């Protein structure tokens, strides 16, 4: 069993109840584990929420954490995957001064080469959006930074697994 830390993407299917985020985040906090990224959203099943959590930890501790998450009454099922077993994306947006767009040709090249897109432009600022893997988002940030970024926000990871996560059948079994 690997004792080296690595990134895991945890997918937690849950009831949509107030307070559950608190319970799930407390599982990490109590064990002094930093959450790299966290996203909550509806899932493919109506009325079922999905937490997507990225953490850096050992395989052995990951298994224990999954046990603790599943122990929560309102958690339906939790899965964990290594990066190579998921398709994942992150999204980020940059707000920059509008005059840069016309004065710095390089910015347009960066947008084109990185498959980013301009969301909006007005007299004072314009907004660039980029979705992709972590490294791609890191790269465009690095490239745009020298020009001066007014605001930057990056989303949590969203991910789907290559193998099925069979929640629908599980819910049928519960009922």
């Amino acid at each position, binding site marked *: 069993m690997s004792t080296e830390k690595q990134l895991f993407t945890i997918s937690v299917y*849950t009831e949509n*109840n107030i*307070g559950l985020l608190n*319970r799930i985040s407390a599982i990490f906090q109590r064990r002094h584990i930093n959450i790299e990224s966290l996203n909550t959203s509806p899932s493919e099943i109506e009325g079922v929420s999905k937490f997507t959590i990225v953490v850096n930890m050992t395989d052995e501790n990951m*298994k224990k954490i999954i046990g603790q998450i599943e*122990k929560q009454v*309102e958690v339906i099922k939790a899965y964990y995957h290594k990066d190579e077993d998921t398709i994942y994306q992150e999204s980020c947006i940059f707000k920059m001064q509008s005059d840069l767009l016309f004065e710095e040709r390089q910015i347009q090249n960066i947008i084109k080469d990185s498959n980013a897109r301009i969301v909006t432009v007005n007299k004072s600022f314009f907004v660039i959006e980029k979705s992709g893997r972590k490294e791609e988002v890191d790269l465009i940030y690095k490239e745009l930074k020298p020009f001066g970024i007014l605001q930057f926000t990056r989303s949590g990871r969203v991910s789907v697994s290559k193998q099925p996560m069979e929640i629908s059948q599980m819910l049928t079994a519960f009922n």
Partner: protein
Amino acid sequence: METQTIKNKETDQIVTERISGSEAIVRSLIAEGVKVLYGYPGGAIMPVYDELYKYQDKIHHVLTRHEQGATHSAQGYARISGEVGVAIATSGPGATNLITGIADAQIDSTPMICITGQVPSHLLGSDAFQETDIVGISSPVTKWNCQVTKASQIPEAIAKAFFIAKSGRPGPVLVDITKDAQFEEFDFSYQKCTKVRSYVPVPKTVSGTLEAAAKLINGAKKPMIIWGQGVVLSEAEEAFKALVEKSGIPAAWTILGASALPTSHRLNVGMLGMHGNYAPNKLTNECDVLIAIGMRFDDRVTGDLTKYAKQAKVIHFEIDPSEIDKNVKTDVAVLGDAKATLTAILPLINENTHTAWHQEFKDLYAIEYEKIIKDDLYPTKEGLTMGEVIHQINVHSNGDAAIVTDVGQHQMIACRYAEFNKTKSNITSGGLGTMGFGLPAAIGAKMAAPEREVVSISGDGGYQMTIQELGTIFQQKAAVKVVVLNNDFLGMVRQWQQLFFDKRYASTEMINPNFVAIAEGYYLKARKVTKREDLAAAVKEMMESKEAYFLEVCVEKEGNVFPMVPSGASVSDIRLS
């Protein structure tokens, strides 16, 4: 029961009644069979108290002297009866005072429901008078909790709370109810909860694991059983005893497992862990198959995990999947409820006696007896020992009493030496180690099992943490026998200071009050013993009393509890002195 949902036979319609949220709370509790609840009134819970007043012929509210006392009483009630204990408090400080008891119930898997009043919903988040985020505060120490802001949500929330608290691995549940929801009227009907989507109380036993476990057990030359409270919680005592007897395997217990098998049973080889018996600790590292049943390998049981049972194949019978491999890697995990899995495995187990292996336990016991037990129970030196007090209680209760202990030296001594004939007889705070647990827990235990003799044993430190509950004993006429083993020290901490901090007794000496006068202030019969020749008669008088009785025994000031596995050491390194 009249308060449960009534179906009209002709129309098959659920009959409802228009009542207030607060009445719904009380009627929901009655519908769940609650006869006694413990609590303390205050602003945000007053509508419920008003209903308790009206329903006092059906449900008995016990006014404790502190909300913490209410939780421990509810825990004591739950632990001796197997039923859900109920505590109730107001918002703010009333609610936060419940937290220690809730945390205790969580770590010791005790089914308990706490109902708290909350400020009206329009004031939530406004820092209103006595507002506190009790759902947020209690989340990490509850099995489940929720906040109710509408009367119509009350029956479902309470039904769900009872189901979750009691099913699977039990635990505490908190339901926080805003004051406006208590006043609001709605159409009430009550249906018990039997399942919650997303919640699996008892996991399925994985196919083949019983056979694999049986094969290991049957092939073992030196098998050892270690059991915990899971045997008690699943009421698996008979199945467990049958397994122990058929297999002839020596069995040792965690403190919460004590009393599931009578102390005098020939295969009961004693207590595990830091102050457990010499033989089961030593031989944990000699056995070839370690069979853990309904226990969670707490660090106080295992000591250094890197030197724990490394030679053994480990079988773990467990209801909570997250406990598997959490502390000790298992070779075979048998998931499920202990009663079901132990019953299922019994036919697969070969009869055996393991005579030679059993002799190893006897030999080590003889060493422990000579070096420790003899002097604890039958001391010849001046100064009373805690052990001889427990021995006298054994003698005068015939081992039938429920022993409720607090936390510290007296707890370890009581657990080591108390004789238990019946299950659910050892009520103590194991996982959390909550000083102050004992006295209020004994009140709850006595009220749940009035026919049983209930003896509360505390040290002078923990006793004073919840001493105010003497008022509850007096008011309720609860015939609890209250014993304080007084050494004028926080004895366990003092012992560690002696052994590991060069006798620097920082803040462990206690200048104590006149305990007898305090008990008498609450109109309790009270007696103090300082000499050995008075002990037996005093214990006899206490046990024969029909009413509550307080007995202070002044014991050796610097007595130590041995054996001892020092913190962080291996169970093999258990010390006899």
